[in-house]
């Protein structure tokens, strides 16, 4: 299979370059049209924050990686993008790469949960643009199966691997139902914002946020259904919260042990989670010694993250086995599309029918007539198969594994129901 792919990704290029190459949905649609016109008979584009990749079946054998690289460079008008920033794949390695991407083992965050959906969207765009033909559709099916199997048959996506999500995972180890809990997020920098978003996604009962610049808090609050507390007065309300996450850039502590003690008294000493994900720390670490206070800082959350990353890495061989199985299955199917095995399978199929029928009726004939029966039925089969066999040989003369020949052969196999048999033969 002459599937060609180029990829610029987090292994090969810094984030600034990846940002420049990144394609929006509208851009992808335009680029697909141009690829279709100039280079590929079928293809698709994947573009996420960590990778931009072009895949396709070249219209002619002369299409080179460099042409595709130049296509991207010229379209995006990026001057500092060189050949070294690209990975190049062909045939089996292209498919193997796509499977690794969709399974999440090529992601920056191993086991990334979003990549399966992102690749599916890429497939849908190609289908929308009628750029996904017979072969690419089969590639899609196999790739999506790999992605789903990796999720269900392994734990490659289990456990939090970011500090803010680890904080939420830890909170869930203390409280059983977040919809009955209240949380306060102090500081609306990037980390605080993500933590608040995670709590919102987990359907926290009541979410409040506070920030020195109230305008910034206002921008975020509506998106996550959060109440805003004025930064100067948030300490008056500390006792109302089961969970307090602090992520400010304050150089000094903003919550002391004494303040936490007072808060716990007001709360009747019920369990309270304090997550200090700021650097330098916002909450006095001595607060951890107070009964029913669960204090965690970046260091302790990083322990969870590192542990989960290691567990995900340990799952990679299992995912690779799935990829190998699906590659074998795909190429088993693909190789069955070659002419010679198809002619043989077709003849075997007819011969099986002929034999079964002859066996069933031969007792109704005399010994002499049985020989004639063999001869006549064989001649009928040969005549029936003469034209299809000649046509299939003509297909072979056009070149092995061209998209056109593969399509014709697949049609023959489908019509005569010989696909499964040949797959098991491979």
């Amino acid at each position, binding site marked *: 299979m002459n599937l060609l792919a180029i990829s610029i990704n987090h292994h090969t290029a810094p984030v600034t370059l990846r940002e420049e190459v990144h394609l929006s949905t509208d851009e992808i649609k335009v680029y697909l049209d141009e690829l279709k016109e100039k280079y590929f008979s079928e293809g698709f584009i994947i573009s996420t924050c960590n990778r931009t990749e072009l895949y396709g079946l070249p219209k002619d054998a002369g299409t080179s990686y460099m042409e595709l690289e130049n296509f991207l460079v010229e379209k995006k008008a990026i001057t500092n993008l060189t050949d070294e920033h690209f990975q190049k794949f062909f045939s089996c390695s292209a498919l193997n790469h796509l499977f690794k991407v969709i399974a999440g083992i090529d992601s920056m965050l191993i086991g990334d949960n979003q990549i399966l959906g992102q690749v599916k969207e890429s497939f849908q765009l190609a289908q929308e643009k009628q750029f996904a033909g017979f072969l690419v559709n089969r590639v899609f099916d196999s790739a999506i199966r790999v992605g789903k199997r990796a999720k269900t048959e392994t734990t490659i996506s289990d456990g939090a691997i970011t500090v803010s999500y680890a904080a939420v995972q*830890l909170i869930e*180890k203390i*409280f*059983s139902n977040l919809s009955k809990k209240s949380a306060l997020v102090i500081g609306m920098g990037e980390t605080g914002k993500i933590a608040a978003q995670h709590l919102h996604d987990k359907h926290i009962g009541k979410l409040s946020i506070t920030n020195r610049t109230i305008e910034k808090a206002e921008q975020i609050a509506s998106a996550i259904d959060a109440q805003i507390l004025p930064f100067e007065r948030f300490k008056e309300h500390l006792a109302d919260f089961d969970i307090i996450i602090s992520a400010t850039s304050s150089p000094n502590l903003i919550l002391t042990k004494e303040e936490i003690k007072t808060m716990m008294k007001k709360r*009747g000493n019920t369990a309270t989670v304090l997550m200090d994900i700021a650097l330098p720390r916002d909450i006095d670490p001595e607060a951890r010694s107070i009964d*029913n206070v669960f204090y965690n800082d970046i260091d302790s959350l990083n322990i*969870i993250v590192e542990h989960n990353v290691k567990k995900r890495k340990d799952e990679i061989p299992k995912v690779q086995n799935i990829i190998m199985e699906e590659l074998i299955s795909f190429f088993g199917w693909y190789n069955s599309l070659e002419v010679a095995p198809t002619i043989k399978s077709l003849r075997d199929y007819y011969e099986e029918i002929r034999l079964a029928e002859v066996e069933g009726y031969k007792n109704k004939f005399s010994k002499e007539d049985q020989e004639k029966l063999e001869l006549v039925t064989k001649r009928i089969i040969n005549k029936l198969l003469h034209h299809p066999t000649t046509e299939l040989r003509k297909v072979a003369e056009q070149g092995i594994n061209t998209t056109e020949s593969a399509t014709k052969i697949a049609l023959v196999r489908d019509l005569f129901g010989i696909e499964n048999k040949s797959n098991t033969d491979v």
Partner: protein
Amino acid sequence: MKNAVDIANILLPIFYLASFAIYLYDFQKDERRLSNVKRLFLFLTLVFHTFYLIARTVAFNHPPITSVFEIFTVLAFSVSFSYFILELVTDIRGTGLFIIVISLIFQTISSVFIVDLFQVKEVLRSNLLGVHVLHALLGYAGITISAVYGFLYLMLYKDLKLNKFGLIFERLPNLEILEKLSFYSAIIGFILLSVAIGIGVIWLPKAFPDFSYLDPKLVATFLVWLLYGIGITAKISGRLQGKKVVVLSIIGFGLAIFSTIVTNFLAKSFHAFY
């Protein structure tokens, strides 16, 4: 029948040990394929134990509640049976080994020391005694499970406080669930103990001529009952929660075990079995 009872008596600790081993292995490895296998094996163990209890009742012509070691085998069954129901209802599967180990201990002691009593006091054949003992044992199973969940709560609490994120952190349900499991088990245990005490107070004076309300077993049982009563009331009224509730449950369990040992082996009581 006697031979079947003897063979089952030897096999039962092995069954519990095997169940414990599967739950332990699954706790360490968390293999998805084992999660139903272990439940099935515990079920088979309980079926086998049921057969043993019935066979014993038929073979000796009295229910197996006439000696401490007969009581132990019923207790082993009650604890695992209660856990099995709890696992089915809640689908919380990571705590089984901590409960089954209790059954394993009780059953092993029972299997080693149990004696075959063909002749028992007539009072031990009473139906009311059967109801009394059944409620008391299920009640004790309840407070045993409550204490185990309390103990697990404390282990997870400690790990969370010390930022230790090992197997305990990964496999156990969260603190609130452990507290709930401990509390609900204590409530069930308390209700069943209340029924057992109620029947005892009405029936015991009639059945035993040397009955005394100051009997050490009665006093100790009443103290355990009172402790659980106070704990449950305080928890429901919101005056006690979290760590303090589970600590109280563990103290109650310790007191119950202590009183059983003292009254059955050391003190003279009408309530001792032989």
